[in-house]
């Protein structure tokens, strides 16, 4: 569905992504894990058009993806940016409606709104509340809900667990699985490697702008190097 071929991104003189190749199949959850500064967010931002890439290509549904952010949203790819970027002065409902910015099918919007409220019942309760006054977890849910309102085929989730309490992280990940069951494809960027691998079908490990490892998530989670580097299991523990 989406394939990223030999993608190179520079921030001035810094070579942030060095020829990255990624392949996302329809209906899957694909996780990208890696440490800070490995280029995870850069990759997602390059796909969604927020960061310009120097060379390489991004193919989406057998066609070259446009480079401007707003055209990419139209093509059916929606990013839920890192750090709960919502319209803080608008109400929850207004934020969700903003998500449907490019849509004109009123019935479809209505239906999606219901689905989102089923997915995030808390948002229904807080419908009229100003979004800036929501808790961190609720804001994350709102950001995800707003992303879904554009009825995307592919959702790019950037660090959905950032700064949330462990219990809430579980809820968020349960919801991500539910979104997958709605027939959406998800590209997930996460620091929380264990969580990210446990729900994913496929995963990539980014290290300093290069794909260091890739494979089925169920294989990677058992891999010794991964366990050591990202899951906090030391070799000595097994002794």
């Amino acid at each position, binding site marked *: 569905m989406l394939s990223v071929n030999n993608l190179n991104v520079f921030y001035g003189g810094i070579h942030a992504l060095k020829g990255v190749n990624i392949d996302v199949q329809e209906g899957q959850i694909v996780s990208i894990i890696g440490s800070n500064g490995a280029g995870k967010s850069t990759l997602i931002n390059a796909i969604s058009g927020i960061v310009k890439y120097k060379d390489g290509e991004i193919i989406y549904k057998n066609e070259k993806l446009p480079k401007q952010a707003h055209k990419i949203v139209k093509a059916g790819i929606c990013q839920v940016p890192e750090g709960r970027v919502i*319209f803080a002065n608008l109400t929850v409902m207004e934020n969700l409606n903003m998500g449907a910015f490019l849509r004109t099918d009123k019935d479809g919007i209505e239906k999606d709104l219901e689905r989102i409220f089923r997915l995030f019942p808390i948002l229904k309760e807080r419908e009229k509340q100003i979004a800036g006054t929501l808790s961190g977890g609720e804001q994350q849910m709102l950001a995800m809900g*707003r992303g879904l309102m554009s009825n995307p085929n592919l959702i790019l989730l950037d660090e959905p667990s950032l700064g949330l309490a462990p219990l809430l992280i579980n809820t968020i990940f349960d919801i991500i699985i539910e979104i997958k069951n709605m027939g959406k494809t998800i590209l997930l960027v996460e620091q929380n490697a264990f969580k990210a691998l446990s729900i994913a079908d496929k995963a990539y490990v980014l290290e300093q702008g290069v794909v260091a490892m890739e494979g089925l998530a169920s294989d990677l989670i058992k891999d010794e190097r991964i366990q050591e580097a990202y899951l906090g299991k030391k070799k000595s523990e097994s002794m």
Partner: protein
Amino acid sequence: MSWGYLSGILILTGINLMTVLGLSLLTGFTGLFSFGHAGFMAIGAYTAAMFTLKLNILPESMSQVQFILALIAGGLVSMLISLIIGKLTLNLKGDYFCIATLGFGEAIRLILDNVQYFGGARGLSSIPTQGTTTLTNVVIINIIAVAVLVLIIRSRHGRNMVAIREEELAAQTIGIDVFKYKLISFAISAFYAGVAGGLMAHYFGYIQPIMFKMVKSTEMTIIVIFGGLGSVSGSVIGTILLTFLPEILRSFSNWRLVLYGAAVIIIMITRPQGLMGGKEFSIKGIMKFFKKARPKEEVES
């Protein structure tokens, strides 16, 4: 205070208001700060003046039409240049854009200062002032300008600009063409500044590059912030107050600019959101205010 003096200040208020309205859209509603709008005023002023002086083809009886055409020409040339400048600089984030506009404003002034065709530092003079920038004309133009601005702000386009101000990244991820709307906002504000420049040229009868120094740009941006970001009525009230204030303080002679500065600082400390603070002045709002005030009176009585 003679009528002549008062109408003079009112005309100046109207000229300032034109620029401030444009800046209000750019700064108050799109969230971009510009310190170079005196540059656009200069472009508008010189274009309008040249148009009147060199292209005066219409008969005497149609001088009003000639004047309006000159203003529109000033606005359009300003807009055209803003599109070029915007294309180059609007990708810059926050402060960097601000610095770029500052550089642009000064560059325009220095270019005009050195090109002899435009009169160099002496500028252009003997621009006809009879029947051009009159109080009636200024008031009519400003009413149209406010009406158009309100229409823009209430339209889908205006709301897109507000979305960019509120949260640029979110605006981008829901599919708003951020760059396009920044450019539109920048161009409209340049058009307003250009028309203001044209009015100014036809009010004073002469223009010199020194009239469009950075201080002028800063003054305009201060008025927008003083009136309240994101409020058209705030911009109008701010312009009236801050144009009249130096005149009222004239009896303090040398101290007047100090007092002007102090007044601005006091307002900004006590009301950091500006006079109107993102709210609009409306009859509905006044009714609400009195409705809220009434129960209190009852309690007191």
